[in-house]
């Protein structure tokens, strides 16, 4: 069975500092991994995804993530954060259902709070 663990429920950081949001996964099949961002009172926006190929994945808004199979991790990083990056970040893994369907299993989320 697939599962996702986000190791930090909250990450406070000062503006222009680097940040890393940690995500570990478990999966018994080939893994597809995602990071979504949820701004206050809004929906989920796809930041980036890993399907195959290069283990370093670049996404929108200057974010990137590295897939590490040996450590079963998919940590999200940004070298310099802005106030506008304040949001909830969800790591997710694609889990197969019967009949060729898939669902997403989300981690508990990490609240990134960027302070001036």
């Amino acid at each position, binding site marked *: 069975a697939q599962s996702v663990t986000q190791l930090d429920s909250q990450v406070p950081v000062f503006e222009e500092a680097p940040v890393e949001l940690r995500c570990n996964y478990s999966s018994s099949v080939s893994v597809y991994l*995602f990071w*979504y961002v949820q701004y206050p009172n*809004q*929906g*989920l*926006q*796809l930041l980036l*995804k890993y399907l195959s190929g290069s283990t370093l994945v670049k996404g929108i808004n200057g974010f990137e993530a590295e897939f590490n199979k040996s450590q079963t991790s998919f940590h999200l990083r940004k070298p310099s954060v802005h106030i506008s990056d304040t949001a909830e970040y*969800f790591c997710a893994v*694609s889990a197969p*259902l*019967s*009949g*060729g*369907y*898939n*669902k*997403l*299993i*989300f*981690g*508990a*989320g990490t609240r990134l709070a960027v302070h001036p």
Partner: protein
Amino acid sequence: AAGVIQSPRHLIKEKRETATLKCYPIPRHDTVYWYQQGPGQDPQFLISFYEKMQSDKGSIPDRFSAQQFSDYHSELNMSSLELGDSALYFCASSLGPTDTQYFGPGTRLTVL
């Protein structure tokens, strides 16, 4: 670019009432998914449809039902509403049942 459309965006109902949530996928997307996000929680998979065929269900109560129509839009019907059904309900769509899911803005349901 066109996104997933959900309506209504906000809905207030009394206990034991019924509610219908609608989802219009991104054009050409043939697969829709429903997720429920309780307060302070991560989204939980409810159900999905591909070409009007239903997938395995997630944590969806028997009081809820859903369907997908020939234009690929989907409706989530919720009956005998309970206080615990208060949540944000997301719809997502994809081009095929294994492609990346793109989420709508959600419908916030409040049951009083």
